[in-house]
């Protein structure tokens, strides 16, 4: 999965630059789709909420915009290796303007299941 972090970098662009990067980005996505390397991708709205606490009693606002860490969008890749995913991330048209791309492999199994299996093997108890 590619997670596009931060959207501060978009602020300093002129309308023409924005359109250029946007077009390049869409061409990048289309190209990957044609190669069967991406199965889904979308930008994320700047609004949203962060839910935490027992029973989700704490509902906080972002920031989801103008932040270096905020996730601005994602791609779901279908590739054979982390190296391939990294190579694709390096093609991101936003990099030259300060975008950061987080590359994460999808886990083969739910980590809970893996952890449980391991605990059973080692006979771990509290």
């Amino acid at each position: 999965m590619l997670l596009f972090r931060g959207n501060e970098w978009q602020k300093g662009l002129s309308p023409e630059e924005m359109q250029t990067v946007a077009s390049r980005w869409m061409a990048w996505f289309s190209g990957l789709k044609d190669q069967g390397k991406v199965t889904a991708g979308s930008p994320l709205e700047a609004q949203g909420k962060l839910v935490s606490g027992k029973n989700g009693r704490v509902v906080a606002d972002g920031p989801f915009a103008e932040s270096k860490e905020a996730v601005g969008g994602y791609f779901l890749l279908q590739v054979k290796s982390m190296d391939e995913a990294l190579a694709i991330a390096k093609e991101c048209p936003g990099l030259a303007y300060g975008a950061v791309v987080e590359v994460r492999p999808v886990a083969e199994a739910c980590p809970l299941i893996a952890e449980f299996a391991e605990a059973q093997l080692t006979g771990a108890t509290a």
Partner: protein
Amino acid sequence: MSTPTTTTAGEYLLLFRGREWYNDLSAEELQKALGQTKAWFERVSSQVKVKASQPLAREGATVSLKNGRVVTDGPYAESKEAIGGYLLFEAGSLEEAIALAKTCPTLAYDCAVEVRPVGTECPMSARARQLEQAQELVNA
């Protein structure tokens, strides 16, 4: 026009944020947590249309440009903000999506759930258009 408001039906993304809380549990506690999360995902799948849902491995890297060169940092550090997985689904509104997020059992293990509406238009295109329209008004 194409950006969802709080009353808009559409796609929403849940990002599950937190440490590897399951590492600290005993086998019995793990079994309980497994049961809870499995039941939750099954319930969610029957209540809403889930488009995709996967856990993310803790390995990873970030790619960025530093001093004119593309650099790769990583592996990914463990933190409370780390994203452990996602769930992409359809909901009638942001409120509905938030209500769903509140039922997530990992909240009891000090995790957080980020709820984001999926955008329908590249934000740069939208902004560029806005700026151009504003400029046209100025020039008129």
